[in-house]
């Protein structure tokens, strides 16, 4: 399940809905990404996430389907915000429920690495020197590459 939205979200509510009445689930691994006050260009007052409506949802659905194909998961969720966000606000939630905790950890990390390199979002940071578009990081490419199918 995926959602792209401007509004804030509550990770606990999202995860409770994900688990639902499924009493087979032994563990939920989740990642919550937060806006940091420090970026590469210095302190930031806020950032704006631009996305590509349509493609973004489609790509998120595809990666969730891939995670579900690779690992034995009971449930899988990505909620990603767009628009203007201030330091401390939640940007994204990736949550994976499985009866196998190794699968849940691997799948959640896969989703997060993937988000960094393939999800059509672009970050505009408002720093002391004005607004600037964030450039990609080589380490994120490397993190995503470790999931390439052999």
């Amino acid at each position: 399940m995926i959602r792209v939205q401007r509004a804030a979200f509550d990770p606990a509510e999202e995860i409770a809905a994900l688990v639902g009445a499924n009493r087979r689930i032994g563990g939920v691994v989740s990642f919550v990404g937060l806006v940091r006050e420090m970026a590469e260009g210095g302190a930031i007052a806020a950032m704006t996430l631009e996305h590509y409506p349509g493609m973004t949802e489609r790509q998120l659905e595809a990666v969730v389907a891939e995670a579900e194909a690779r690992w034995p998961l009971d449930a899988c969720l990505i909620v990603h915000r767009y628009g203007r966000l201030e330091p401390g606000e939640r940007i994204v939630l990736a949550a994976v429920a499985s009866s196998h905790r190794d699968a849940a950890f691997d799948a959640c990390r896969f989703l997060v690495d993937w988000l960094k390199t393939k999800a059509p979002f672009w970050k505009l940071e408002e720093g002391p020197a004005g607004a600037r578009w964030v450039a990609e990081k080589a380490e994120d490419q490397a993190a995503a590459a470790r999931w390439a199918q052999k």
Partner: protein
Amino acid sequence: MKVLYFAWLKTRRGLAEEELTLPAAVTNVAELLAWLRTLSPGHAAALADRPVVRVAVNQEYARAEDKVAPGDEVALFPPVTGGVG
């Protein structure tokens, strides 16, 4: 063809979206980008740094050799910098 621009490509092009009529000679992504650069200084500025321009055709990532056709939706954008940490 509908062409969309995101992030700093949009700023440089000066708009988010345009409708263009594709010349018959333009059949793949590489040819499309080469042609777009000739259209205006804004197009040229947006596409000046070719290695960092990412392309999606009909909302799927595309490579230089992938085909394009008049009815396609093509999006041009820099590498993504999604909202994780």
